[in-house]
């Protein structure tokens, strides 16, 4: 087990080297392609190897880095959970490393490649450190480094005021979340004896303190993961970063927050309570549903994808909530099922969201447009990107035989075991959450029909879309890797559930009893009688049915197709403006779910007498939660402001008073 840890340390070194090497990239842009990206890729390959090694040979490896406080060196630890997340970082990072050189060409001469390379390298380093950390101190340092590095990446194109605002909101919320996590660790450390995770594991935290620690951790990690209602930063910050960084943020950084939550609740906190699980389940279900509904209303491609991250994180937390409910009720085998479903969705989301952000980056690169209303017909001009993007769309819409379906299927199976629970309320609550999950999945499919239909199909809606060109080989390869991984995880789920099974073994002391009892062809999460799914056979049968239909028709009398004009009702030919727009496509859904949005809609005539339709859909949570909190903070600030006389001696007086009070307190 030490070998994977050495590999991971090697990856850390390579990532740091990549960051350092980037410092010289402004003078020699070649360096970015020849050294910085390859080193980044090497680091990710090492991480992937370390992660797979750790999952194949479960065990625990430890190391200590001579950093940090004199009496508390940084403890590192690699176990099955950490290994899983290392592998996840590695696979997405590898695709990003292939993609980045081509994408960064855009920034040469205009932006600083050194800043990009430096902070991307540091970003990777910090995420790996978070996953490996084995004491609260190292964890928090790495966590803050992760927030800072990603802040600089969000504000990379800082000439735009909107980007700076998004960055500030992001940093603010990240810090509030970090504060909550710190307090959560504080509770655990106070009850245990020290900041090392081992000490926290040993401490028995129960009752009110345990609940307090859970609430703090749920708030902090939930904020970073983008759960509703703490998601406001996510759709602002993710889209404005360079696309391959968006892929890393959405695909990987959110998963690091999920990692933190799992580590905190399942590993450190110990005894699970049903009520925590219910809270996680409900918040997850609401996040999933609201995330997809808001996503449907967007027509900025990257912003839409960012809202889908809220949705998918919600689905992951539904799985985690089920695991917590079952664990609290004393069904470890079912808890293992929920946990495996959540982890499977975690890796799936990393893959397809990474893929979709890279695809969106390619579209941006080719057309310099983010607004879907100005795209169309790109499939003919960018055939490879179009193909890979389609794979991503099918995967995220949870359609068989791709990977998103497998994890949602596992989540449904976990939810359907609710009949085992004693409590009638839980028995009825869990299927309702499952129905919300079903609604989410169907709406996600609607959303991606819109995305793909408006962006890649139909006729081009603007000149840039008409003149787009296919992206470079490296960028296509980056997307191809992820698309292949999506298919692989969809068609051969038994291998990966087998690998994932080590994690519940570590955290719950329980493996999935019969996940692969029927051999590699059959995925049977509970037992063969209850449910079975054979993805390889489904894939083969789908291919066979397609081939049979095509073969039968090839032999038919008429083989060729004839090209003709589209049906125009006998009037003038169709123009691109006659197509359904992204906004028009979502209109029925906007109307049905209207009360959930704040819609501003108006019609006016401009100077030329043409009708102008203006439509803005806002997040209701802004007015319900964020603005009141913001106003309260301002009021508190003004009140505190009265203390500010401007006279230095008054400040010194306050200092004296505080010192006195503290001394009195400890005496």
């Amino acid at each position, binding site marked *: 087990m030490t070998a994977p840890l050495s590999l991971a340390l090697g990856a850390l070194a390579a990532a740091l080297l990549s960051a350092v090497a980037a410092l010289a990239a402004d003078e020699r842009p070649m360096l970015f392609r020849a050294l910085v990206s390859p080193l980044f890729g090497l680091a990710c390959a090492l991480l992937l190897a370390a992660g797979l090694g750790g999952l194949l040979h479960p065990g625990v490896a430890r190391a200590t880095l001579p950093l940090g406080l004199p009496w508390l060196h940084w403890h590192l630890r690699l176990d099955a959970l950490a290994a899983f997340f290392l592998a996840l970082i590695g696979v997405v990072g590898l695709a990003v490393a292939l993609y980045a050189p081509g994408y960064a060409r855009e920034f040469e001469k205009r932006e600083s490649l050194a800043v990009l390379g430096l902070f991307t390298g540091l970003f990777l380093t910090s995420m790996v450190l978070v996953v490996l950390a084995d004491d609260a101190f190292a964890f928090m340092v790495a966590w803050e480094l992760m927030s800072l590095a990603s802040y600089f990446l969000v504000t990379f194109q800082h000439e735009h005021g909107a980007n700076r605002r998004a960055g500030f909101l992001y940093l603010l919320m990240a810090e509030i979340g970090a504060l909550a996590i710190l307090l959560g660790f504080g509770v655990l450390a106070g009850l245990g004896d020290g900041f090392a995770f081992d000490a926290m594991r040993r401490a028995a935290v129960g009752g009110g303190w345990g609940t307090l620690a859970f609430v703090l951790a749920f708030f902090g990690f939930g904020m970073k993961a983008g759960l509703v209602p703490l998601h406001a930063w996510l759709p602002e910050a993710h889209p404005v970063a360079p696309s391959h960084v968006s892929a890393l943020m959405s695909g990987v950084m959110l998963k690091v927050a999920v990692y933190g939550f799992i580590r905190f609740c399942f590993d450190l906190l110990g005894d699970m309570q049903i009520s925590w699980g219910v809270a996680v389940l409900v918040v997850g279900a609401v996040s999933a549903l609201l995330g997809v509904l808001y996503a449907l209303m967007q027509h900025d491609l990257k912003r839409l994808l960012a809202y889908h991250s809220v949705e998918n994180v919600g689905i992951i937390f539904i799985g985690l909530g089920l695991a917590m409910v079952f664990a609290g009720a004393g069904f470890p085998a079912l808890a293992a099922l929920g946990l495996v479903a959540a982890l499977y969705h975690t890796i799936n989301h990393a893959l397809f969201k990474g893929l979709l952000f890279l695809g969106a980056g390619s579209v941006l690169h080719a057309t310099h447009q983010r607004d879907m209303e100005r795209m169309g017909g790109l499939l003919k001009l960018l055939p490879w990107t179009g193909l890979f993007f389609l794979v991503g769309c099918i995967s995220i819409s949870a359609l068989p035989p791709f990977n998103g379906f497998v994890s949602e299927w596992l989540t449904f199976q976990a939810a359907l075991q609710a009949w085992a629970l004693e409590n009638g309320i839980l028995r*009825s609550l869990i299927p309702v959450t499952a129905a919300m999950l079903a609604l989410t999945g169907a709406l996600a499919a609607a959303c991606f029909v819109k995305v793909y239909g408006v962006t890649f199909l139909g006729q081009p809606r603007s000149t840039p879309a008409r003149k787009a060109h296919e992206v470079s080989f490296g960028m296509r390869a980056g997307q191809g890797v992820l698309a292949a991984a999506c298919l692989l995880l969809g068609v051969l789920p038994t291998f990966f559930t087998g690998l994932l099974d080590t994690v519940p073994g570590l955290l719950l002391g329980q493996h999935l009893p019969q996940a692969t009892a029927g051999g590699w062809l059959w995925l049977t999460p509970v037992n063969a009688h209850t449910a079975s799914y054979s993805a390889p056979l489904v894939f083969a049968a789908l291919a066979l049915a397609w081939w049979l239909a095509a073969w039968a028709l090839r032999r038919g009398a008429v083989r060729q197709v004839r090209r003709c004009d589209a049906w125009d009702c006998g009037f003038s030919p169709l123009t691109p403006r006659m197509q359904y727009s992204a906004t028009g496509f979502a209109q029925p859904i906007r109307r049905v779910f209207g*009360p959930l949005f704040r819609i501003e809609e108006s019609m006016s005539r401009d100077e030329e007498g043409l009708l102008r339709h203006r439509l803005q859909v806002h997040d209701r949570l802004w007015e319900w939660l964020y603005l009141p909190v913001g106003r309260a903070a301002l009021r508190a600030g003004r009140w505190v402001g009265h203390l500010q006389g401007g006279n230095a001696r008054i400040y010194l007086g306050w200092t004296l008073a505080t010192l006195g009070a503290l001394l009195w307190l400890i005496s």
Partner: protein
Amino acid sequence: MNAMAPPLLGQSLLLLAALTLFLSFALLGQTRLTAAIHQFAWQGAMVAAVTALVAAGEGARHLYLSALLTLGLKSLLIPWMLHRLARRLEMEREVERLHHPAVLLLAGTVLVVFAYWVALPIERIGGHASRNILAISLAVVLIGLWMMVGRRQVVAQVLGFMSLENGLFLAAVAAARGMPLVVELGVAFDVLVAAILFGIFFFHISESIESLDVDRLNRLSEEETE
């Protein structure tokens, strides 16, 4: 249910109770007056059928009488009166516009779960079948009340009140095998009188404010009306 299916009588009881609950939902979401009155009539018939079945199962004579009474009163007489009233007020085709029908109905399902939760600790009053029917009847009561809260039209409110009474009656039949006949007669008479009184009120309300929307009845003092 899984190990041993209850006999046909018990199953029919459950089925009828579930249908009563469903009709409560149908009433809650129904915006057309005529259809709502029909649904109320059907709900009365369901309750009557439950009573008759309990009577057959228990061999309790007096329950047959109250089943007949329920059938006659709640599924024939009162609906007929309401129909006549609707005709005379010329509101047969009136459709009330609900603001959030989905929210109204989903809140109803929450009430069902709540009623179930409340009924859970009640110890067995003779088999858990009757406890479950108790849960259903409690849900019918709550939904009836919720209907009076959530709907603005006066007739809908009256129907809500009547279906609330149906729920109470169902509970009495299921849990206590019916009330004493005297009480039952009294209640039935009360309901009838209430229906008549409501009818008279409708006339007066619709004459004085030319609408049957209760949201327009919220001025308390007379001076402001000018």
